[in-house]
């Protein structure tokens, strides 16, 4: 059972909402002692990214995790299309390989676009990393309701400032002043 806490829940939802037309992805962080808790997330890209920038982003987030006493726990991904096919896009396979070389027990958290508009279902699911031998099986995930409530509060009714304030690695590479650590998001909780 994987526990997705409020802060990463909020960051993932804000990232997905900021780029609703694009494929978005990011890394998940958890405590060093390997318990199945996700307690932070770093949004990475909203364009398909291959090669050096993906590698650099990984290294940077890994260093950031080390400096916070955390570990790289997984990868989140939201497909571009709301009702797209279930197959793993190329990016997920690429990242899966990269992540598996750093952390073989990492999880893939898929954002379920189809469940985002209603609140009836949990809009996330944990999948095994694609193409990785011995990857962990599909596990159930509990999502913090506080994270979802905070998202609804700061971005409902046409309010968009919170989404716009979230910074991903893509934006950081465009403008180094924008900080992908997103320390300010904690204020919304």
């Amino acid at each position, binding site marked *: 059972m994987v526990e997705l806490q409020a802060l990463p829940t909020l960051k993932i939802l804000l990232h997905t909402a900021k780029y609703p037309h694009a494929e978005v992805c990011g890394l998940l962080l958890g405590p060093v002692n390997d318990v199945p808790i996700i307690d932070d997330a770093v949004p990475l890209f909203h364009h398909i990214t291959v090669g050096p920038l993906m590698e650099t982003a990984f290294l940077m987030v890994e260093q950031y995790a080390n400096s916070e006493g955390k570990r790289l726990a997984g990868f989140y991904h939201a497909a571009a299309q709301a009702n797209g096919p279930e197959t793993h896009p190329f990016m997920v396979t690429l990242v899966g390989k990269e992540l598996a070389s750093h952390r073989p027990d990492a999880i893939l958290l898929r954002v379920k676009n189809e469940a985002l508009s209603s609140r009836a279902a949990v809009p996330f699911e944990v999948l095994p990393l694609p193409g990785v031998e011995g990857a962990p099986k599909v596990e159930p995930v509990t999502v913090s309701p506080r994270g979802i409530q905070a998202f609804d509060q700061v971005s409902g009714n046409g309010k968009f400032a919170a989404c716009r304030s979230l910074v991903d690695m893509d934006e950081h590479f*465009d403008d180094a002043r924008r900080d992908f650590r997103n320390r300010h998001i904690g204020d919304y909780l």
Partner: protein
Amino acid sequence: MEELDQVLERGDSVAILRYLRHNRIRASAEVVQHGQGFVAKGKGSSLGIEAWPVYEQVFLAALDLGETLLAERALGLLRKQFPDSARVGRLVGMQAEAEGNYAVAAEVYKSLREAHPTDPVVWKRWVSLAKAQGDLPEAIKRCNEYLKVFQNDTSAWQELAELYLLTGHLGKAAFCYEELVLSGPSIFSHHVALAEIYAAMGGAESLRLARKHYAQSMALHQGDDNLRSLYGICSTCHALARCTHKSAHEDKSDAAVNGALFKLAVDKLKSHYRRVNPSMLPLVEVTLLQQAIGDASLKK
């Protein structure tokens, strides 16, 4: 070009919509917020001829947000004014796509293509339709057909490159960017994109091509927004050093170039962060250390 935030802060709806339109920014929530009033007023609005691009802009944003009534109203105003237009016709197709009626959209685009066989906008919707339906190979096929006719369409080459990347065809994506570099050799961002693809392909030959194009992009553009090249150089030089280290034909002069370029990029990165975001400098330095080429002087 002002920062988007500053423009939004001023609250001038017409200026905001104009800024978003001219810079092709897809900020649909803002567009609906600032544009829906004009659509509601319709002919009574104060926009003059700017009304038509604004209605189109609000229509597209409304589709993004699922605001079907607003979209319908905006579209109605446009259809009344421009009954035979291909540009408006394609909006009808997009409305069908947004509702998931791909068969209807296909019919709309088919008759538009018959009525306007040389209109690129209609043709591009035809490509996008395949993409929307999740049929990437078909989208690639259509995009290639389009490019046979409209060979100089930069954004189409970029779209095709992206489609190839999405389907894992790095070599073909590289070909698209080679075309772009050929037709626009002074555009630094094309060199960066091409370099990224070659770097992702891996292997000494591709890595050297990547390094060449990153270096060219740096020669063309030294500005603050070419961080991708600097990071790309670090990663590519590191990968090259690793893969030629064990090769039988280790080229000493190339290794020297490699090391020099790496050091240049590292120094530029450090001074950039020192200037614009010093709080992140330690993190960047530690990251770059991971990619250091076995030169003791770099590990400071």
